[in-house]
């Protein structure tokens, strides 16, 4: 079997997709963004509770492929506790990582680094970026709270 395929579907990704973390709603979210990929039908809702400039809770609900579910699961893990600035930086870093653009691969991403394999699959990049675009919309004042990737 090819290395790229096992790299994409490594155990960590599969764990997150089978048992997504923070897979729940938040009762009183400060931000709630629906994200939808019309090409494949993946859809998820990202919930954030931001208090005093810091993400105190993050969760999501939705359905989609292993890559989109794992990416959203990891996102909610990582963004919890971040300041707004740190969360915005995280989006930029992940965007570069997933699309294979910008600076060389960062090394201090922890679990998120496991998503890097998606770069070899142009048709799948949007699966991985879906939840991250939802995060960006939540963090950006005046952005519509509904995002699509296509």
């Amino acid at each position, binding site marked *: 079997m090819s290395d790229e*395929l096992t790299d994409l579907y490594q155990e960590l990704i599969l764990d997150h997709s089978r048992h997504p973390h923070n897979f729940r709603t938040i009762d009183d979210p400060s931000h709630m963004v629906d994200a939808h990929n019309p090409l*494949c039908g993946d859809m998820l809702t990202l919930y954030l509770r931001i208090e005093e400039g810091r993400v105190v809770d993050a969760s999501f609900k939705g*359905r989609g492929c292993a890559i989109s579910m794992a990416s959203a699961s990891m996102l909610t893990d990582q963004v919890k506790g971040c300041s707004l600035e740190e969360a915005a930086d995280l989006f930029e870093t992940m965007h570069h990582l997933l699309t294979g653009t910008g600076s060389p691969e960062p090394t201090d991403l922890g679990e998120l680094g496991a998503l890097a394999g998606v770069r070899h699959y142009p048709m799948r990049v949007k699966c991985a970026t879906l939840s991250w675009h939802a995060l960006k919309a939540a963090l950006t004042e005046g952005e519509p709270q509904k995002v699509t990737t296509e």
Partner: protein
Amino acid sequence: MGLDRAAQCLPAATRTSRWDPGAVRRDFPALQQEVRDAPLAYLDNAATTQKPQAVIESIARYYRKDNANVHRAVHLLSARATAAYEGARAKVAQFLNARSAAEIVFLRGTTEAINLVANGLGLQAEEEVVLTHMEHHANIVPWQLQQARSGATLRVLPISPRGELEIEAIEGLLNARTRLVTVSHVSNVLGTVNPIRALVNIAHERGIPVLVDGAQAVPHLEVDLQALDCDFYCLSGHKLFGPTGIGVLYGKAERLSTLPPYQGGGEMIRRVSFEGTKFADPPQRFEAGTPHIAGAVGLGAAIDYLQGLGRAAAAEHEQDLLRYAAERLREVPGLRVIGESPDKVAVVSFVMEGVHAHDIGTVLDHKGVAVRAGHHCAMPLMDFYGVPATVRASFAFYNTREEVDRLVEGLHLAREMLA
């Protein structure tokens, strides 16, 4: 040398006595390649088909020798281009058994053909259009645009869990306000062949015309428009082993003549002055501007190729592949086939428990097996089956049982890895 050339352009099947996919495949350059270190198993034919060398060569030859604008100049090249373009129209008419070439309009594809009719009907607020639950978005959205413009009503003929039209429900949907019934001949997701003639009979008893989306039918079935008796029929060249960007709207002469122009421009007029314009008769009325001449030529070559191939033998081979695929797919645990009509073309949609269609698509791609994973532009149908997406393997006469085996191997791998 001329003879050798001609022999090479003959479809492979005519060179052998029985169906030989190996020989047919040699007519298709794109099938000769490896992808991801494996021979390409192209099972996405419902999305678009590969092109035989004869089609590719016909387009190149047109541009090398005959290229000129049609219906305009007096010079020789224009005469050749016009003859090639109108010759393709005549071939399409003969291929579909239309009454006359004037009933064949060249457009970009099925989508544009449906849009032309939807725009041309001039629907009014109190009027209704009947479509079905298994339509492709191309046969839903154009009607919704007209609905939004006019306030007309869309009525949906339901389907059964097996993926067949609930045809007895049609009576209750038709009334004096119904302007048109629009239905796919073959479902792009389920592969179901719909009973067009029966629907046409019911609609015609009430004087209601019928439009048929034939995009998925013509690659598999021999279509006889006079026997079907539908009023409009639409197809796309690229799903019929021809080029992209060329398609056909067939309309009975008396139906086409009632439709207003779709776009304005050159080619579609009889006389223009600033006081007003007199439009040409169909089909030119609907072909404003320079048409896709090379596309029509390529479509004509595809029809020649198919007719030389022996369509009955090709269809028989496809049905063998369908039966074999259905049988082998039953071996894969957790796999559910969607669309179980006994009357199907060689299209198989399925879902696998615990594994998303896109992940299956990626694993199969890694084995060199090209399938489609997604909603197939039929979201209402996905909703009916309660699935976000399916995997679809769609076969052509050049596919083989070995390719079905590779599909099944890939599915076992996807299940081991991901379920």
